[in-house]
């Protein structure tokens, strides 16, 4: 073997061993994909024009809505995403006047939908998009239960090909080169959204906090929520006033279910041993009980046998004795009778002898 190919093989073996090890180490201490793309939404810039909703509808070839996109009256009713609307802008009345906020999939760093899907239909892609694969989706809708942002929707009206519908971060269009930016980001006339590497967006947001003191609530929504999201928000009003829940916590979905999943091997490993042991103990108890019963029975039997033998012997002895006595008695009687007979004969003989003498 040539030295170089040998070293190559060794290297390959080493890499084969090293890769899973590093991957595992990374999974244990995951800090988020900070260099992957994200979008920063600045709530102080949004004017509620709904241009982003229109763009989203067009680039995704979604059906035309009942209420046209230039109708701004609809902003007065609170809306959520649905199966034909991947993004909505809502108006919130705050003490400082109306505030608008756009809502769409936040493309979590560790998505609850992906963690909850039992066919792995959702995948977090390197370009930050959380992709959905309709060719495997069973339609259980657990992703909709799991999503803390209430984003995935379902085509309830379709009988044969219902799909989960949600924002794709224009992943397919950008990968094919059809779009350079997500449709909504590209169209915004106020530049309320910026697309770029997530860590740079975080820096940019803080720079704005510094540049405009007092304009912002100095915190970035999505930096840590549910393990962090690719979509980030800054706002002039507290987040809870613009429909962003501040009680989600920082634990990601996989962390929330890790405990329950970790119990699986414990149950699988421990239960058979424990139950098998309980069965064996019961079996042994039964066996010992049966043995003891057997012993007790045989002891009782032996005792009964011995007693019976004793009785038999005793009665045999008694019978022998009585038989002997009877024989004795018979003999005695016979002897007595014989003697009596003899005596009578003797007496008779004597009497005849005297008669003869008298007759002479």
């Amino acid at each position: 073997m040539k030295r170089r190919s040998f070293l190559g093989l060794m290297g390959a073996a080493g890499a084969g061993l090293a890769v899973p090890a590093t991957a595992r180490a990374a999974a244990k201490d995951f800090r988020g994909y900070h260099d992957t793309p994200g979008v920063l939404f600045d709530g102080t810039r949004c004017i509620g024009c709904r241009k982003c909703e229109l763009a989203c509808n067009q680039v995704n070839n979604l059906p035309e809505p009942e209420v046209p996109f230039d109708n701004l009256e609809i902003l007065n009713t609170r809306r959520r995403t649905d199966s034909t609307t991947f993004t909505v802008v809502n108006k919130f009345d705050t003490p400082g006047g109306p505030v608008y906020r756009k809502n769409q999939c936040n493309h979590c760093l560790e998505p609850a939908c992906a963690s909850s899907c039992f066919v792995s239909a959702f995948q977090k892609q390197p370009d930050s998009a959380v992709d959905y694969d309709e060719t495997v989706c069973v339609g259980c809708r657990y992703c909709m239960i799991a999503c803390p942002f209430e984003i995935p929707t379902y085509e309830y009206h379709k009988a044969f090909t219902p799909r989960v519908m949600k924002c794709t971060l224009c992943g397919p269009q950008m990968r094919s080169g059809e779009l350079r930016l997500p449709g909504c980001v590209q169209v915004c006339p106020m530049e309320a959204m910026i697309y770029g590497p997530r860590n740079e967006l975080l820096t940019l947001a803080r720079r704005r906090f510094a540049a405009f003191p007092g304009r912002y609530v100095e915190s970035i929504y999505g930096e840590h929520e549910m393990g962090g999201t690719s979509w980030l928000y800054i706002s002039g009003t507290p987040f809870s006033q613009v429909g962003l829940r501040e009680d989600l916590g920082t634990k990601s979905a996989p962390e929330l279910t890790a405990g329950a999943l970790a119990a699986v091997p414990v149950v699988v490993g421990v239960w058979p041993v424990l139950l098998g042991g309980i069965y064996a103990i019961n079996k042994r108890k039964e066996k010992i009980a049966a043995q003891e019963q057997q012993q007790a029975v045989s002891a009782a039997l032996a005792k009964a046998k011995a007693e019976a033998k004793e009785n038999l012997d005793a009665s045999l002895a008694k019978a022998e004795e009585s038989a002997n006595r009877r024989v004795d008695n018979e003999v005695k009687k016979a002897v007595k009778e014989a003697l009596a007979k003899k005596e009578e004969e003797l007496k008779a003989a004597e009497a005849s002898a005297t008669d003869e003498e008298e007759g002479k």
Partner: protein
Amino acid sequence: MSTVTNDDFKSYLTPFNIVTGLIIIAGLIVTVIRFTGGLGAVTNLDDNYPWGIWISFDLLCGVALAAGGYTTAAACYVFGFKKYHSAVRPAVLTAFLGYALVVMALHYDVGRPWRLPYPIFVQQGTTSLLFEVGLCVFLYLTVLFLEFLPTLFEWKGWRKLRDALVKMTLVLVIFGVVLSTLHQSSLGALYTIAPSKLHPLWYSAYLPVFFFVSSIAAGLSMVIFEGSLSHKYLHRMMDSEYNRNHDDVVLGFAKGCSWVLFGYFALKMIGLTYDNNWSYLASGFGAWFLVEMLCFVALPAFLYAVGARDKNFALIKWTAILTVLGIVVNRFNVSLVAFNYHLPSEDKYFPAMMEIIISVFIVTVGVVVFRFVSTRMPVFFEHPEYKGQH
């Protein structure tokens, strides 16, 4: 000829047959609508409430109430309570039918039911608790089928097959307990992923433990409850062995269930304390939580204990019904009442009539099949050729 047919027809017109017949016809009509018009045509489900009563009742309650299979089998074969032997077959049959109907209900609920084998055979989402549920339910349904088969084989007289299966009983029972522990608990664990949607009084990292422990109480209570129903309507099928042991089973299960419910109550209090949720008790949800805990957990625990002590069979029977109701209340609370507690009341879900029809239809199918099997096969009686061979 015609008179014979008429008489035959009339003899089928019992109240039971008329009612079940109507329900089944209604169910079949809704089935057609569901599979031609989609979920939206028959349900009130929406994007906020992707899971309705087909999950709350048919899946969560169905699985919990079918827990009688593994609890009775484990009590008899593993823990050595031989006197419960006559209760095993009805319990296993109920569990098998229960799980089969859960799977049937899921065909209505998921969007593309023909893909239900996908998570096992096509692409496995192993990080999902629903994957665990799916895999365990699939395997456990197989186990229950194998546990039930000897009944069928005895009926058919296939001795060799029957003997081979009976030899595997212990392995099947232990495997069944492992699988039941896993999926009973993971049904609760499904909701651990959504702490922001489930009210804190019901959300807990211990949800899997709560679901598992309460399933034992549900299973034991269902065996008592079904036993009393069967005694009323299927008494003619029962042999002296079944009847002699029935009182023992009821008393033993009442005692066990009381014990489990006290434990469950304590666990719930530990959960409440661990998350320090006491302050929520002084709210509307808090009052409802107290009703669940006191009327449907603490009360039956106490009543079972009294019933077992006094050998009061009527009390035990009613307590079993109370406990079963309590489990239903708990599963509905977790999956519907306390779920999406933050949404305004106009966004709340209430089941559509057709959803209810399907749920009733599925239960009815279960009752009809149970009656069919138990009036023909050796369920409540020992087959004369196999007496004492278990």
